[in-house]
């Protein structure tokens, strides 16, 4: 019975259509109603993920909850949905973060509330679409379509320099996606199908793989973002409203690394292997270089944005070390590297989201993001101080929080390639703690800097509930990551044992 319901379609279209209806029927006049309706839709979407999670078979790496309809018959484009261990956690994350964002923007957004709310609902549906698509063109449509609401969110509710930021954001991401479209069309023609699975099974020469790999890489590297195409992110974050930053950091960045496991590694395994050292070096630069840059930031949002780049570097590192590990027969370590990357994606979603919310809480009260405008906030806001500290510590990778798990796995597995990778990646222990806790110290500790800070009100019940729910998840994954690992395990093992095998000769390829 449960498999006959089109769960994935519901997860995609409920928020999109709900958002559209909200925008066109309720309109801007009824602020309160539009907030409640948006919350209702977002919560329903989140609730819809529960049966999917419960009915998901973690022992299978195959796509589940498949919906397959012909769309453009002539060119074999399908409306083809399905989830596996890679996408399910991200869909749950997206649906959860949307509820969080709507709750957190409850009072801080003052104008065009309905449009704001519907933009986030649509974002939610579109991003679910990205993760649930099993057809490449469908994937691309969602991938590009989600830029529009994001563009609006930053463009309408953003800060003073939003035009520059949106332009930069748009240029970077659009440039990347265009190349991806070319590759997808090429692959579709070659495979005579736009099913991503067929693309993964398509044999290819190394030369073709090189082209495709780079086209994908540019698209995904911009999204992650990887050094040196990362500079749009700090600007976009600084200008984005809190909700925009949360979605950007918590989910949008993951689309890039999701692309790696969905396309780069399995579609072009030989090119990925060929370029893996380059990618590893870029990832390590992200960890070390960006770690230092984060240390020098004066704007809290920029600091967290840079820290996001450094943390995403771990994901890329974890994914691209698998080739040398497999070559040396270290399958367990390869599984650990990928699992580490995936856990880091989910964990960073919670932690960075929570940190941007924390900054939002402060911004709503003091209207500044500059670290120097704060000091001694802990005196007036003890509950907030405790939660903020938890997230700052999680950002620094403290064991017992989710931030530790991914970094731990990636460092442990990268050591097995060469100790140097682990040594460089391990610098995050010091750098991550330095930038996170130094910011925390300057903002939260000390005597209250001025009268405004001394008379701050602690978090409201609404803010408290949002932050506490994130805190519980951060702790839960840190203390007991097994359930999350188990969901992803089958897909990861399939990728390691099969997906990244050479495509250069038919014998070498995995027939499933």
């Amino acid at each position, binding site marked *: 019975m449960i498999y006959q319901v089109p769960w994935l379609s519901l997860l995609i279209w409920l928020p999109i259509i709900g958002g559209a209806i909200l925008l066109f029927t309720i309109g801007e006049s009824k602020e309160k109603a539009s907030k409640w309706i948006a919350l209702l839709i977002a919560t329903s979407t989140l609730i819809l993920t529960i049966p999917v999670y419960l009915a998901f078979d973690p022992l299978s790496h195959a796509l589940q909850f498949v919906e397959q309809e012909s769309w453009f018959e002539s060119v074999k484009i399908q409306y083809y949905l399905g989830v596996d261990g890679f996408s399910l956690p991200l869909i749950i994350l997206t649906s959860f973060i949307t509820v969080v964002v709507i709750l957190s923007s409850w009072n801080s957004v003052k104008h065009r509330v309905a449009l704001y709310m519907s933009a986030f609902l649509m974002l939610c549906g579109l991003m679910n679409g990205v993760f649930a698509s099993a057809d490449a063109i469908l994937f691309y449509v969602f991938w590009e379509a989600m830029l529009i609401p994001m563009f609006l969110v930053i463009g309408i509710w953003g800060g003073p320099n939003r035009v520059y930021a949106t*332009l*930069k954001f748009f*240029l*970077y991401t*659009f440039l990347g996606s*265009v*190349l991806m479209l*070319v590759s997808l*069309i*090429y692959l579709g*023609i070659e495979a005579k199908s736009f099913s991503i699975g067929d693309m993964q099974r398509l044999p290819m020469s190394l030369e073709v793989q090189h082209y495709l790999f780079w086209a994908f890489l540019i698209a995904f590297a911009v999204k992650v973002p990887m050094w*040196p195409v990362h*500079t*749009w992110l700090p600007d976009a974050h600084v200008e984005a409203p809190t909700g925009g930053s949360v979605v950007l950091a918590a989910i949008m960045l993951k689309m890039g690394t999701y692309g790696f496991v969905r396309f780069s590694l399995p579609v072009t395994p030989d090119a990925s292997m060929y370029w893996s050292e380059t990618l590893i070096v870029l990832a390590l630069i992200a960890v070390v*270089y960006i770690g*230092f*840059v*984060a*240390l*020098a*930031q004066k704007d809290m949002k920029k600091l967290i944005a840079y820290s996001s780049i450094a943390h995403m570097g771990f994901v890329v590192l974890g994914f691209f070390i698998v080739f040398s590990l497999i070559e040396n027969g270290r399958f*367990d370590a390869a*599984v*650990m590297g990928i699992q580490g990357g995936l856990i880091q994606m989910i964990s960073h979603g919670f932690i960075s989201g929570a940190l941007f919310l924390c900054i939002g809480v402060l911004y709503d009260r003091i209207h500044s993001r500059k670290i120097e405008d704060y000091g*001694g906030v802990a*005196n007036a806001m003890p509950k907030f101080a405790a939660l903020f500290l938890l997230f700052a*510590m999680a950002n620094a990778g*403290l*064991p*017992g929080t989710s931030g530790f*798990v991914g970094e*731990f*796995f990636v*460092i*442990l597995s990268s*050591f*097995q390639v060469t*100790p*140097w990778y*682990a040594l460089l990646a*391990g*610098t995050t*222990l*010091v750098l991550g*703690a*330095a930038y996170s*806790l*130094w910011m925390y*110290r300057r903002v*939260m*500790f*000390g*005597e209250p800097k001025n009268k405004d800070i001394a008379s701050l009100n602690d978090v409201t019940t609404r803010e408290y509930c949002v932050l506490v729910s994130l805190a519980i998840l951060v702790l839960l994954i840190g203390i*007991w*990551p*097994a359930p999350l*690992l*188990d969901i992803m*395990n089958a897909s990861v*093992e399939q990728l390691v044992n099969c997906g990244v095998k050479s495509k250069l000769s038919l014998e070498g390829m995995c027939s499933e």
Partner: protein
Amino acid sequence: MENTLLAIVLMPLFGSIIAGLWGNQIGRRGAHIVTISGVGVSCVLSFQVMWGMINETIPSLNLTIYEWGSLGNLSLEIGFLLDSLSATMLCVVTFVSLMVHIYTMGYMKDDPGYQRFFSFISLFTFAMLMLVLSNNFLQLFFGWEAVGLVSYLLIGFWFKKDSAVFANLKAFLVNRVGDFGFLIGIAAILHYFGTLDYANVFAQVDTLAMSQPTMSIGLGEWSVITFICICLFIGAMGKSAQVPLHVWLPDSMEGPTPISALIHAATMVTAGVFMVARMSPLFELSETALTFVMVIGATTALLMGFLGIVQNDIKRVIAYSTLSQLGYMVTALGASAYAAGIFHLMTHAFFKALLFLAAGSVIIGMHHIQDIREMGNIKKYMRVTWITSLIGTLALVGTPFFSGFYSKDAIIEAVHASSLAGSDFAYFCLVVGVFITSLYSFRLYFLVFHTKERMSEHTRRHLQESSQVVTVPLVILAVPSIIIGWWTMEPLLFGDFFKGAISVLPEHDTLAIFSREFTGIWSFSIHGFQTLPFLFVVLGFVTALYLYVINPKFTENLTGPLSSIRWILDKGYFFDAFNQKVLVRFGLSTGKGLWKLGDEKLIDGLFVNGSAKTIGFFAEIVRKIQSGYLYHYALMMLIGLLLGFSWIAWPFVE
């Protein structure tokens, strides 16, 4: 048994959560009742377990509590390893923690953060117990960093004070440097042993000893075991504050005194010593690593002792003394006298906690003045504090029949017997260290409890003995400070109490050499009065008596080389200055440089805005037929898309 161990660990956590989350609801009384009962239950159960182990009714256990996660064939589990070593640590931790909890009721009486403080120290107890009971490296690392977190929270407990929040950040970061090494060590263990379980790692030690694997990391070939041991020891250097990662411990005195006693003297800082003892099967295989450990420990023992002489803050004197004593413990580990290291860890936990809590009592009496130059003759006003302090001091300097004598002498004898490279240097440091220990300890003792009354009239009038919640823990701690040494020395060092928990290769067994000269506890104690170390103790006492009681003018007017030495000591050998001026400045300017030059000038300036400008240049031409910036770029991209697409598709068209 599993339930007992779970209760020992979880009771303090339970108390901490209640006091932390519902502190306002349960009030001050509720907070201390719930946390003290939690730790109290832990303590009683720990002693029960210890009793069972001594009578061999409870065997050593290796339990799995739950599976944390599994990756391929690797299963990571949370579990407990109960043996004589962890049982000893359980008793030390819960007992000192309980004393500190009780003492806190008095010390923090008027503090607005009363509930928060109780929540933190109970949380610390939980983390420390997780650390000592761990049966695998993952959980060890969890406990390792969790105690670091609580230490951070407690050093910065009075977060309005700038010095406190400077100190806690410093402590955390310096510890993170150590943890970095520790984590690399753990990664190496997983790489070469394929597991993070102690039992599985130790089971493979023999095969590894046979094959002697090496690894190359740029700077030549390393023995794998040496690499692993040194990495793990770097972690220990952070947590147990060994030179050059010791810099955080003196600053940690910014925290309230009860936690200085609990965390920064008795328990957390000894985690490194405990860890190395726990890893004895590994360290035994690398003489290079053992020498490294011994030299670092001995250097710390001597250098930090010197710094104790010039401090004027009562707590900082004891902090430097702690550093120096930790150096003794670490030196013992290097000499393969792990049992002696743990023995000193235990005796030190009692008498150092006693000294700290007594200092706290003086601080309460002095209304939070901590400068010993403003004290003097306090014995007249605080009898219990005075007597217990004297007991602590005698134990610390190593007077025969007091606990510190046995453990310290065992270490010195073991190092003397060691034939490793560096053992002569270590022996020299430790013996001179005895003189230094005696000097700074009696200096502190005289300046606080004897000599002229130098406090202000106002302070003097209010000076009185602290309340009973403060003095009772002092008296209770004074008991083991006297008796624990002669009572437990024989079974701990020469018996087979630690058999199975600590392993020593026969050729390294320095305690065995020592045991041949050992003829029983009484003759050993009596003989103690005739040894070189005791002579140094007396010498230190006499020097302190002369310099600070008989002729106090002497130290005020230092000239020549003595004054430069004093200057170097005052600056703490410039470690802080170096870290602050070189390392921190380097980090910040690198960050700023990379940001401004790399990101803003190069990437954004040249490539991003540069290419935007290039596009803009072409757009000028296209502008005649188009308008609006974004469309320009989008158009250019579409053109590019078409070009690219045709380029790729071209060969296939033909």
